[in-house]
């Protein structure tokens, strides 16, 4: 099966039909997979009181912009922020809980794996259904709320290869004649390998890593991968979707297109997410602000992330999620990173 091309259509997100089933509540069997509308901040209650947010670093200052806007809009609300790498903050929350302390009211993480770690430890507080129902049905969870999504992709150089030369199975990639760029030390890549482990098993994943290691050119980060593809150093790379969109934004004539594998880890959709660690109306209302139409549109427009609420359009240059085939996987299981790192080391990749 050799399909694929970079689909430029901006069709609306029929997200649920394409996404894995992740929540017990989302088994509602609804055909109405998309919530009717995203709520404007104008319709949200004013925030009052104080909250402490643990904020995972990511997206430059865009999350900060969102937080500043929320603070400015709510003068009777005080937000204390502790910043750091997402994984480190997740570990801090776990350690604090072990010591019988809960300093944070909220945790906003850049990837669902860290969320899974906290949810798995039973530290997250259930969210009201009227809040989670705003999300596309496949992204409704009892204990946390995804904020925005990103897709694993295969950026390729159309001057070197055509789309039909790219396998639509990620497992077949090492057997292709393509030259490949990857960034195994990169956190998103490691989440992708975790997904592969869950979907294909450790043995197949090890074989894949070993085969790839023989032919793939290593880069430190995934923007480096995308730039290497654009320069023509390699035919194809492995990277999150937004790197390609950002490079094309800064360099409109960039020689880059996107391909997607089908129903495997190569097309994983991962998300950033937020959870509450204490029961609090203010904390819940704060999450409503993050899911508001304005914040979702801002993150999509400025960071090229995929909005997960209402009928908001994906960023320009990304196909409708109904046109791709992400795997069915419980995103919170991506927290189990240690066996992935062991496996990558054993395969000689790290």
């Amino acid at each position, binding site marked *: 099966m050799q399909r694929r091309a970079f689909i430029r259509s901006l069709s609306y997100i029929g997200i649920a039909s394409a996404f894995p089933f992740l929540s017990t509540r989302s088994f509602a069997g609804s055909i109405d997979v998309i919530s009717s509308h995203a709520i404007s901040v104008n319709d949200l209650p004013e925030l009052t009181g104080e909250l402490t947010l643990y904020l995972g670093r990511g997206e430059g*200052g865009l999350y900060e912009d969102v937080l500043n806007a929320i603070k400015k809009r709510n003068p009777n609300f005080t937000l204390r922020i502790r910043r750091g790498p997402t994984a480190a903050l997740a570990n801090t929350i776990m350690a604090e809980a072990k010591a019988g302390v809960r300093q944070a009211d909220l945790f906003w993480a850049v990837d669902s794996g860290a969320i899974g770690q906290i949810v798995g430890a039973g530290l997250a507080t259930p969210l009201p259904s009227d809040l989670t129902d705003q999300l596309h049905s496949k992204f409704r969870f009892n204990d946390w709320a995804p904020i925005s999504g990103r897709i694993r992709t295969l950026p390729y150089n159309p001057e070197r290869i055509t789309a039909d030369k790219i396998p639509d199975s990620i497992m077949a990639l090492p057997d292709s004649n393509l030259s490949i760029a990857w960034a195994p030390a990169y956190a998103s890549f490691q989440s992708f390998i975790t997904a592969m482990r869950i979907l294909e098993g450790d043995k197949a994943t090890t074989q894949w890593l070993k085969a790839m290691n023989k032919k793939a050119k290593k880069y430190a980060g995934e923007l480096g991968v995308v730039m290497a593809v654009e320069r023509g150093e390699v035919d194809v790379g492995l990277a999150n979707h937004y790197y390609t969109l950002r490079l094309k934004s800064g360099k409109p004539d960039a020689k880059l297109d996107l391909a997607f594998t089908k129903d495997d880890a190569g097309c994983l959709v991962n998300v950033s997410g937020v959870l509450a660690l204490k029961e609090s109306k203010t904390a819940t209302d704060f999450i409503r602000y993050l899911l508001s139409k304005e914040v979702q549109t801002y993150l999509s427009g400025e960071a090229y992330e995929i909005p997960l609420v209402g009928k908001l359009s994906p960023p320009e240059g990304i196909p409708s999620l109904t046109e791709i085939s992400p795997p069915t996987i419980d995103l919170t299981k991506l927290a189990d990173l240690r066996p992935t790192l062991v496996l990558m080391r054993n395969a000689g990749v790290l």
Partner: protein
Amino acid sequence: MKSVTKNIRKVLTCLVITTSFAAFSAITIANGEVGEHVNHLSDNIKKYEEEVNWLSTKVDGIVTTYQKSGAKAAHPDALMEHWEAVDFHAAIESNYVLIYASIWQGLYAVKGSIDEKSSIANVKAEQVKLERAFWQALGAVKMAAKFQDEGLLAKVKTTNEAPKNSIEALVIIDKNIHSVVAKYAEKLTDTATTMVHDTYLNLFEGVEGELITLDAKLVEDLEKDFNVTLPLAIKNNKSVDQVRDIVTAMSKKLTKAKMLLENKAKNKKDVF
């Protein structure tokens, strides 16, 4: 003495220029324990002066011993031990890492010339350069003390804080790459390499996504600098001056990046 004064003046001018960017940024991790004295520079200037004089005497003693009794008797390793023993070490590392790197470069140059049994003229030439770096450093610390007294210098902290946005991240990145030169000059090659890698992965990687939409060529250049040019220069044991040249060029690109992001911030659309 005249040329030393001139050099200090040059350094002070340089300090004033760099204040707007990174030289006096708050976050510094020194090589070892950072004493609280670095937050009270004026109170300690006299001590630092004494230490610089003491260091000069020690260096001179080692060079004189070399001249009279040879390399083994000179025990040039003591140069580093003496340098690490003084509080002035942390004062300059906390406040002006560029000269801190020059001191390490000078220490190893004197040691190297003795180890290689160079002519006494060559050894003394390296000694002069090292002395110059000591006095430049003292001048820089005096200027930093003045800024500190005027409240223009943030308190030195021993831990890094996460940057709030890409502009803050760029300031830390610039400081980190100058520290790479210092660590390389200290012959801590693995530390320098790790610092380059960590700065890229933990800081620059988070900035470049935003930056590439503004200037793709600039990001491409910096990507190459972080992942190829700088680590390769360290791996291939290039001279400290060559590594410093690479870092200086990177620093200029970071300044441009900072300007682009500041301009973007002015025109940023509101979230609500």
